[in-house]
């Protein structure tokens, strides 16, 4: 095999490798989670505060009028800021959004 062919082959392999390394670039937008508030130590008494939450998963038959069951994961705790004007009760189920670097929800009662 000629020297030129070897170089061409190396270039081709490098191109293929570089293409493979390229990211599957996709912006996910705002990430959302269904969460349930809980008390880890001292539950906040004011509305505008970070609340401890656990993620919740929903189960149930997807038919009109069907009921759902909720399964919280108490082993996972993270903190979500309430943008609303009311304090959610412990165990409230809310939709949290990851916005501007922090998790948030809005609870208006």
């Amino acid at each position, binding site marked *: 095999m000629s020297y030129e062919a070897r170089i061409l082959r190396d270039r081709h392999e490098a191109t293929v490798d570089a293409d493979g390394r390229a*990211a599957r670039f996709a912006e996910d937008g705002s990430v959302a989670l269904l969460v349930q508030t809980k008390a880890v130590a001292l539950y906040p008494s004011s509305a505008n505060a970070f609340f401890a939450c656990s993620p919740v998963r929903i189960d149930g038959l997807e038919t009109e009028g069907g009921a759902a069951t909720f399964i919280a994961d108490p*082993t996972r705790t993270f903190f979500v800021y309430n943008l609303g004007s009311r304090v959610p009760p412990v165990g409230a189920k809310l939709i949290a959004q990851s916005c501007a670097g922090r998790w948030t929800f809005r609870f208006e009662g």
Partner: protein
Amino acid sequence: MPGSFDFDPYDAPLSSPAASVCVCRYDPTQTGDARYSALPNVRCEQIQYREGPEPPAARFAYVLDGADASAPAPNDFGGLWPIDADGPYVVRNDDRLVVLGVSPSGTNRVLFDGFAQSPRVDLTERSQRVGFLAVGAAVRCWDAPIGGRRQRHADDPVDGDVVAVELPSRFNPDGRPNCTPDGADVGRDDPSSSHPVFLDPDVDRVPDPRTYWTLGKFVRYILGVYNDQSYVNNPDFEQLDALLQSRPPAEGSAFVDMTEGADKGYSAADVVVRDFDATNTPWPEALAAQLDHAGFGLRFVTGEDGAGSPRNDIEIYRKDADDAGLIRELLLPEAGDDLNPARCNVSAMHLHRDARPIVNAVTVETDQRRVELSVVLAPGFTPAVGDETSSNRAQFLRANLAAAAGEAQRKYRYYVADEAGDGHWDQTGASWSTTALDLSPVFPDDENGGATYVKRLRAGSSSLITRDAQGRPLRAQLAVSRNYSGAAPAVWDGTGDWQPISGGWELLEDRLGVFIAVEDPDAWPIGEFTGTHPQEPSRTLRAVTSQANPAAPNTRFVLRLTTVVDDDLMVPAAVDARPASPTKFSRRRRIDARDHFGMETVAARSAFNNGDAPLVLRDDTARALAWADQLRSAHELPPLTGSVTIPSLITAYRVGDRVARINGRDVGMQTNVGSDQGESPVYPVISAVSWEFAADRQATVVELTDARADAID
């Protein structure tokens, strides 16, 4: 019971009757003697058989007798040469001719069977000469080149139907196997004619049904599919695979002794066909291309079928020390003796042994070995307290990077293994470090304590060597840990709990590491992990806060990248010179086979191998060594070239036969050494035989091998 006897032939007369040579037109549609029509006005001047993809050829001349104007045969080129010339004494284009040799004892022998082509006229002021060339019946094998291929359905590689498709006849493309499984040949009930077919090279299945095309399989496929045996008969396929194996010395020996059998005198390994596209090539040339490359030969042989008709066969043979082929001797009386034809059959001889093309050591250059490993990355930037505040971290948003300076562009996004020592953030010392990654756990020193790798950049691969349950390669994986307490960067030591990250990152193009490609690195969506020991309870990772000012719950994290990198070594596929080589120097050649052979391992204590030893998932060492052995075998001896003229028609010497010695002069023709150590002798191979009948004489000219003079590549 062994015995011996002495034979001292009586002096033969100095002359004896020549064999008569008869040219006939042959019609296979007739029966009995009606098949042959003698052509008394045609004389055969020469017949030549050559080794390789060349059909036999013969040269003929018309006997033009102008003395008898009433003779039925034309005596002028005007009655013979025009394309519309016709008659019982005119040989037309494509007429099938057979040359019969009749010995003084009356035995017929078919010397040539072929088709008339290339009529020629040489007219001078004093003479006219009309003749033509004929090419052996094997030329019909060139009529249709290879096109398309026979491929079996992928859903049933063993018993599925075989379809003739218009896909290229490319064998082992890019080093991938694309032959049907062993034992799944077409027509496997009859081993004398069974052959494998193609299989989709992209089949990705466990167990892998694909096999590599070996030389034996390749030859059986080409002959079985493309030679319909209308003119040339195939050899028995049953022994082909064994015949076309590499036969290096047995373990622990430097010599090859073919007489001891495969268990003692030599080892045997299949020779894998390298990436080869036979499309648009006549099948004899495709066959010869692969056989020549590995040091094997092919010949076309003409004889009689036992029922009075000519028969043509293709035969394949070894040219190394295999003792299965015929061995011939030449006769030359001792110097000063009286001429005795019983002890002399050489009238002229030219021999030349050329040691210059010898290659007795071969290194097969393979692809770099590839290793899947897990490496803990370090920040390729300097974290700074305060960067995590909402006002400061805005500068690290992706949309703001265009206006950012170099360091800010990398901040909180650029994690490296630092395999070349370009620099990384050392969390332990809270300082910038240029200590390169230690890869010795993956590339350990050799047995002499020497390094086996050099510190250099090694970009990772997006595909892993490890495969999933369906046999598909996994993608490179990034994982996060908050409780790993080992070094970073470092080859992962197996400690810590790790949570896979679903996306938002890409491999660095020029080095081992990752770039966090999300819009906001402080809200990096890493996927929701519900496995054991989660390292991030939410779905986002605070990549700025956790590095710049880590505090619960955003404690500092480390990233572990599992990917594949190149080793700096190749597969160890080198064979050294054997003592049987007739030169005292080691003359090595390197053969580029990077597209074909490789080795892939999963390093110990990596994400998909928690054992203490590497997992070898692909190892072409044996195949590469077999290739090296066969190339050495084909080129380690000096080609002995030359010709020997025997002053009579001798049919005992055939292309492919080996000439062992010149009796009477005690001259051995062996081209290797080491007989005392058990090395089987290698003799020059007859590469061409010509019978000449011109100028009122008969002679047989034997040409000795020149095939090994071909360049090795």
